[in-house]
């Protein structure tokens, strides 16, 4: 602060108090003893948090090239200055002693590592890819990224693979995380992503959380709801879950259901809404069409048994339906029937139906992994949105189905750029000729470059790599050798004739499986942009240099592409490619309702919620008065759903049982998930002292009654056994989560306790997203 501002800040008429000698001495001592760096000595820059899909704004304080502090950005509309414990401890995430700082290649013994230069590493990757392309074609190469890729990384990878390598084998870890939500929105609105925004948390009255431990997984958004509840005491939080969590502590009603029976519950609510005349018929007539798909259990399967065990290729078939047929089909889900399937008392089902049917109250449905990691995840997404569509409680401030994302750029990179085997930017798909044409034109590549057949989806990609059908695979910004379901299926030792490249910032079980490891730049060590759960795109500048020779993922990709003769895809100056790349990517969505803000505008703002038209963001999509694409004076217009006559689709989706249920040999349900303190596989957060010390290792949560029966208590060891693997670990009774009798929970952040060796690789039929929430295990005392 300069002297003039300082004087201004104090004002002129400061009452002067006679200070005693003691005060003066003290002041002098402070001044002399002071060697500290003041917050004002740091250079502060804005960035979104590196972790969850909430996308909190932080200010990072930098001195001498290091991040020394962060603070919540009070100017960010997302978090208004608050952060969670992970966000507050962001700086330490960058400085673990074992940061990867130079490229490393497997030694001849297949175990040791040899330092190599970037040039050698990039040449090696280019030659491996070229060899595979030549010998086995574009289906034998793959790249596996993540929802933690920045928009730049994702766009570079997509353009290189689909526009250069002529391969659709590009997938993100978000296939394991958001694919069901994508398919939910796409099947109903023919356009991905929610209509609401975070203002819904102040506008809504009833917050119905479907299998969503929001207090731990989206803490800052949860505190927005709590603050709203304090101001408006009639706000209600409803927790539908299969185990008690931190969220339950704040819930007005806790609805515990049998795993997988949420399908029946949602149908049961639909039935009660119909029965009590709570449908908004005028809204339905104007805005809704009814659809059905394949409903046969055998035909769909689960993607992990029998014929489907290696290639899972189910395709849903759409047929038209009607409101009358819909009512008839749903009528099977009477309260008595649903209660029998789900274990939920009829009275609770009726309360839920009353909430959804009450037009005087705003209803927000919230969900994340409980609904998405589900063998019928797309269906479950459809069913929740159905509840909003049949009551007209959608695209209104305070009434919306709100799908939350787990990763900082699951929306911005994976869903919007389209880094999936079947997608292209701005809601386009490779299976449509007109979409491929548009992409090829923007990219300046010959017609027919992009293959029409989708590539391997994530689970299949790893199966193909193990079979040898994929020969070269590059993994960036994710840790699949911890997170893939049924991990034993991809046990890998280097030297099997295939080639695995891994870019990361720390050693992980995935770098252990690699043939070549590249050091990546993380977070604000490079320029980037993320897109959060509310369609907000947030840009960040590079604020510090990465350590050693670490480089940003997009740069790594561009350099390999150049070495393969595909440099024309990235024709921008080496020191200034971010802006032209972003503007090229942005051109995909302009005029199509997927308009992103300009690069220059994003640099200046705390993010912008798309569609951004004439520099103005859109808080509520499809809503008259908010969305510039809606020309009506009131109501909604689902203008993206051209194939449905610009209406939204309500789907009949029946109840199907899970792929594996407890039985006499394996009598417990196993559910897996995260904890507040750790991010995904913990490769970042475990290197932060405070976070590691708060939750140092994985454990199994057991119900007290089950613990008593097994004569174990907290801290004792038990062995968990599934049909796929087994593991010994510590018991936790009455910890932060309390599973019901016959059910256990294990967090997946701990690489020393690979719980995914036990999980089942069953999938959603439509989204190809695995179900990490339901399989059967046995618990043994050791």
């Amino acid at each position, binding site marked *: 602060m300069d002297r003039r501002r300082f004087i201004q800040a104090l004002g002129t008429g400061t009452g002067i108090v006679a200070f005693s000698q003691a005060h003066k001495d*003290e002041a002098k001592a*402070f001044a002399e003893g002071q060697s500290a760096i003041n917050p*004002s000595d740091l250079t502060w820059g804005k960035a979104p948090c590196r972790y969850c899909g909430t996308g909190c704004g932080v200010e990072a304080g930098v001195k001498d090239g290091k991040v020394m502090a962060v603070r*919540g950005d009070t100017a960010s509309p997302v978090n208004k200055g608050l952060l969670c414990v992970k966000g507050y401890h962001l*700086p330490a995430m960058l*400085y673990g002693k074992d940061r990867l700082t130079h490229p490393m290649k497997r030694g001849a013994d297949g175990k040791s590592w040899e330092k190599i230069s970037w040039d050698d590493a990039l040449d090696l990757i280019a030659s491996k890819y070229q060899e595979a392309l030549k010998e086995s074609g574009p289906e034998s190469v793959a790249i596996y990224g993540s929802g933690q890729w920045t928009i730049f990384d994702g766009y570079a990878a997509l353009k290189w693979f689909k526009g250069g390598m002529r391969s659709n084998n590009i997938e993100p870890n978000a296939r394991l995380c958001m694919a069901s939500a994508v398919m939910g929105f796409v099947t109903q609105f023919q356009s991905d992503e929610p209509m609401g925004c975070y203002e819904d948390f102040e506008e809504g009255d009833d917050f119905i959380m479907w299998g969503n431990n929001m207090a731990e997984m989206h803490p800052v958004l949860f505190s927005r709801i709590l603050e709203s509840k304090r101001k408006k005491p009639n706000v209600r939080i409803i927790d539908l879950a299969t185990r008690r969590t931190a969220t339950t502590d704040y819930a007005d009603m806790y609805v515990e259901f049998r795993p997988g029976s949420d399908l029946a519950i949602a149908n049961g609510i639909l039935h009660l809404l119909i029965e009590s005349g709570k449908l908004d018929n005028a809204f339905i007539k104007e805005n809704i069409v009814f659809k059905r798909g394949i409903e046969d259990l055998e035909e769909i399967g689960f993607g992990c048994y029998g014929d489907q065990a290696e290639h899972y290729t189910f395709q849903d078939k759409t047929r038209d339906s009607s409101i009358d047929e819909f009512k008839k089909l749903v009528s099977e889900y009477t309260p008595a029937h649903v209660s029998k399937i789900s274990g939920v008392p009829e009275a609770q089902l009726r309360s839920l139906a009353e909430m959804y049917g009450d037009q005087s109250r705003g209803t927000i449905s919230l969900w994340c992994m409980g609904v998405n990691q589900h063998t019928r995840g797309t269906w479950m997404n459809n069913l929740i949105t159905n509840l909003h569509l049949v009551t007209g409680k959608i695209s209104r401030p305070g009434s919306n189905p709100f799908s939350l994302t787990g990763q900082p750029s699951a929306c911005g990179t994976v869903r919007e750029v389209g880094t999936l085997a079947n997608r292209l930017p701005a809601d386009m798909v490779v299976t449509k000729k007109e979409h491929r044409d548009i992409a090829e034109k923007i990219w300046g590549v010959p017609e027919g470059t992009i293959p029409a057949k989708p590539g391997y989806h994530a689970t299949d990609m790893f199966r193909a790599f193990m079979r040898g059908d994929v020969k070269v695979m590059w993994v960036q910004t994710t840790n699949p050798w911890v997170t893939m379901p049924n991990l034993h299926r991809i046990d890998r030792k280097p030297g099997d004739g295939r080639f695995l490249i891994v870019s990361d910032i720390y050693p992980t079980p995935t770098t252990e499986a690699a043939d070549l490891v590249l050091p990546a730049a993380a977070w604000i060590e490079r320029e980037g942009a993320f897109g959060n759960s509310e369609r907000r795109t947030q840009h960040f500048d590079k604020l510090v240099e990465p350590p050693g020779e670490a480089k940003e993922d997009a740069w790594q990709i561009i350099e390999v592409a150049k070495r393969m003769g595909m440099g024309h895809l990235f024709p921008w100056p080496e020191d200034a490619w971010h802006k032209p790349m972003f503007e090229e990517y942005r051109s995909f969505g302009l005029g199509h309702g997927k308009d992103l803000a300009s690069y220059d505008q994003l640099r200046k703002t705390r993010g912008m919620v798309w569609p951004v038209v004439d520099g103005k963001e859109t808080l509520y999509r499809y809503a008259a008065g908010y969305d510039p694409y809606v020309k009506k004076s009131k109501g909604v217009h689902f203008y993206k759903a051209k194939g449905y006559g610009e209406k939204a689709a309500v789907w009949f989706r029946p109840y199907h049982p899970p792929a594996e249920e407890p039985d006499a040999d394996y009598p417990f349900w196993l559910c897996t998930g995260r904890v507040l303190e750790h991010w995904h596989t913990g490769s970042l957060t475990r290197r932060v002292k405070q976070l590691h010390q*708060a939750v140092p290792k994985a454990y199994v949560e057991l119900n007290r009654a089950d613990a008593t029966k097994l004569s174990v208590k907290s801290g004792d060891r038990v062995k968990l056994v599934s049909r796929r693997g087994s593991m010994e670990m510590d018991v936790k009774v009455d910890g932060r989560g309390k599973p019901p009798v016959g059910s256990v929970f294990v967090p997946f952040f701990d690489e020393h306790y690979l719980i995914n060796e036990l999980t089942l690789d069953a999938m959603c039929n439509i989204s190809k997203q695995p179900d990490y929430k339901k399989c059967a295990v046995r618990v043994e005392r050791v």
Partner: protein
Amino acid sequence: MIAPAGVRALAVVSLLAISALAGCGRGDDAKKDGARGDARTVAKTSARERAERRGYDGAPPVIPHQNFGVECMSCHNDRGMQVEGVGFAPPMPHAVTAGLSDIARCRQCHVFRETDEIFVASDFRGLAQDLRRGRRLNDMTPPVIPHPVFMRENCYACHAGPAAREEIRCSHPERARCQQCHVEENATDLFTP
């Protein structure tokens, strides 16, 4: 109570020395009384202990006592509370922060410490928590507030009452409206282009 000036100045200097020696809690192997999550009692906090509980100046402190299984706010209320056999639970400084409230989830930011072990050593050097004097226009004017006020709106939480550390204890808490004379030093502007 205000200690004689000489003693206070000495205390300040030695505190600075101690915190410099202890690396302000950055040493990963630091083992301190009362810092572990299984501690039953919490001694009156020194500047050094304060630093040990935080990753850097401004980070939320970890919880220095065991989980007593009660609502945090039942002891850390707006006046603070002497808890039999444990110590003085200081008041919560952000009960009136916009967006937070008395029903907020404390453990969203404050976590227990279950172990002293670390996963991997770290080179992280946080913004140091040395004592920082609020700048004054001249000897006669009240110092500006040398830290952000956001999340610390309740000045008394740290500057008054039994939990207030000597070196930052306010000599005139009865004057109630602190920000009438002490203004926040507006630390920086963002260098956003």
